């Protein structure tokens, strides 16, 4: 077994290696053949091959020395207008090396760029079209301002099919000399759906335990997710609000999760059939409603710790109601 992250090791290097998203791949290959690329916007859920496609395109376009002509930036980490003005602009205005007359700038997680950074980007896209092409990658294309969208060729990536995921997982397992059972694959599918990255990470974590059986998959997932999420919910329902809030602070401050990550994990835990937290079905729906409101408010700009604390206080109230046997 090799010892690096498989999701990275088995990331397709060229467009030919990409097994799904056939339509997108064939259009990208056409660009390579013509040695011309428009500005691109790749949109779709996580783990569907957006970044992989962008890197593979760069590889096929520029050959082995592709790195010299590609700037890869992650907008979540460098989302401000300064980065756009300085780094992107500086890179965009200089001439490309080699036979392709333009460079490629990959802006990953572009939907996290601030509005004014997007405005600045739009100008740069216009001014330096001859020397630079952009490939913007986003989970939510609606968060990209309209003028940028209209300047890009739009590609929508879809979650992968089960067969594709299984095929890939079996291939990796074969290469790594790992045994995989059919139930193991089904369990991986259950937690990852069409997200290939999550599927491969789950495969590797389960393989770290031995044969990839359903049992090892669930065990690995149990080890991977912060136990504090489940503990926090249990404490709140039990009525120990302070204890629950302490767990929340661990998740936000020590783990460094965002409030949105936390509420999403809570939501998943509530509906997880294997969770130790057992709730009446109608109460699960009630909590989903509360969780949705929390996420909405945080996205709108509210404080995550306060919103989540208010959520926990409501859970405590629900817990009390359940204990007394009442329903409303």
């Amino acid at each position, binding site marked *: *077994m090799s010892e690096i992250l498989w999701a990275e090791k088995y990331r397709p290097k060229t467009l030919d290696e990409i097994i799904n998203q056939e339509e997108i791949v064939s259009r990208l290959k056409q660009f390579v053949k013509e040695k011309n690329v428009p500005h691109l916007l790749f949109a779709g859920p996580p783990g569907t091959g957006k970044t992989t496609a962008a890197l593979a395109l760069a590889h096929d376009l520029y050959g082995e020395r592709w790195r010299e002509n590609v700037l890869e930036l*992650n907008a979540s980490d460098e989302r401000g207008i300064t980065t756009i003005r300085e780094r992107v602009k500086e890179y965009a205005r200089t001439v490309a090396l080699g036979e392709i007359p333009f460079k490629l700038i990959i802006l990953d997680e572009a939907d996290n760029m601030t509005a004014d950074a997007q405005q600045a980007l739009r100008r740069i896209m216009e001014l330096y079209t001859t020397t630079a092409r952009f490939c913007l990658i986003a989970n939510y294309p609606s968060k990209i301002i309209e003028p940028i969208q209209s300047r890009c060729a739009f590609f929508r990536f879809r979650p992968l099919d089960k067969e594709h995921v299984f095929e890939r997982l079996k291939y990796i397992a074969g290469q790594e000399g790992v045994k995989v059972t059919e139930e193991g694959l089904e369990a991986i599918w259950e937690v990852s759906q069409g997200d290939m990255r999550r599927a491969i990470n789950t495969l590797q974590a389960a393989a770290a*335990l031995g044969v990839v059986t359903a049992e090892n998959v669930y065990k690995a997932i149990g*080890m991977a997710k912060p136990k504090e999420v489940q503990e926090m919910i249990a404490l709140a329902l039990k009525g120990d609000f302070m204890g629950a809030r302490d767990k929340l602070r661990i998740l936000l401050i020590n783990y460094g999760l965002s409030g949105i990550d936390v509420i999403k994990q809570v939501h998943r835990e509530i509906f997880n059939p294997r969770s130790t937290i057992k709730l009446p079905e109608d109460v699960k729906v009630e909590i989903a409603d509360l969780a949705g409101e929390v996420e909405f408010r945080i996205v709108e700009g509210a*404080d995550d710790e*306060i919103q989540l604390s208010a959520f926990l*206080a409501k859970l*405590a*109230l629900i817990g009390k109601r359940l204990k007394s046997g009442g329903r409303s």
Partner: protein
Amino acid sequence: MSVRMPWAEKYRPKRVSEILGNKKAALELYQWVKQWSKGIPRKKAALLYGPPGTGKTTAVYAVANELGYEVIEMNASDVRRAEDVERIIARAVNVGSLFGAKGRIILFDEIDGMSGTEDRGGLSEILRVIERTKIPIVMTANNPWDPRFRPLRDVSLLIRFNRVNKNTLTKILQNICAKEGIRADYSALRLIADMSDGDVRSAINDLQAIAEGRRVVTVEDVKALLARRYREYDAFTVLKLLFSSRSAEQAKAVLSQSELDYNDLKEWIHENLPLQYSDPEELAKAYDALAKADVYLGRIIKTQNWGLLSYAIDLMTAGVAMARRHPYHFVKYRFPSRMLLLSRTKESRQIRDRVLERIARKTHISRRGAALEYLPYIRAIFHANPQMGAGIARWLELNEEMIEYIAGDKEVARRVIEYMKPRAEIRTKRRGVQGKLF
């Protein structure tokens, strides 16, 4: 990652002879515990009472230490319902034979912190334990005259702890400065003693806040702390006014009566809501109001529409205050711990960010993405298979402190690090052993 040790703990007297304040009281306790070696005394429990920071708990531990007793403690951080009290007694019994054995003292610390609802039955259970006990029971309280404690008072030896006088306090502070190698003006220490109101713990905490990491402490430094303290005092007053308001108007007025701005007030309320409201209905309702106020504040930032501020303030003052269903009761408020937590965990958060940076660079993802999509799996792999973990750690070029952060467990980290050592090194080690043999 070194954790800062509070000086109040570090310099807590370990023996009765080291105690400076309330020495007489400590000696009285010493005599009483000593009687137990000759048989069960008439009073089977001692109730130490007095203001905070006057050495009650310290005396118990010092006496126990000196006479070779082990202290089994139950304090305000434990839930103390009847069954919990029973459980702790049972634990003590299981270790030895409690009702009969010497060598243990049961300490119920801060019994006035026991709440009527959550610690239901706790006090009467303590009373029952005292009736049956064959080992010393010690309780501490700030105010023993609460009618609830009457039955306990009747069966206990009462030992009073007074506020520690300023000369003694100054002396204690001087001793600590000497041990820490700090040169402090006498007048500075005297000022700390003055403002501590006879509370040794708070005086030592103040000293540490001012003096830690410095060589010299002056009166000016102490005055700077005082100024900060004044603002804190202000927040406590505002909270008290707010939570005891009887009308929406009264509640709304509190903000204008103080120096606190609405953002600070939000933090203070957030921290103290669960302390003030123990009824889940009150808590949920008040948090709902605070969370809505927070939504308005977010909208103000986004739209710059400051007209919305008055709604935010209504919700966080009147909204929070009107959630009250039970009569107002005094609680000890505390400083918003979010800020403290952020500064205390700064070091580990920096390590975390460096870890995420490494992962992000190798996997074409943002740091947040790394935290969500990779870190948990790497952690699982570290635990499940240190050898595979070591490969990944090497690939990510992690150092030991980063590995420890990811593993979240020293032993797991150690195993991963062990596998990271080059094979040659392990071989040499073995050869070294053989060399000695021949």
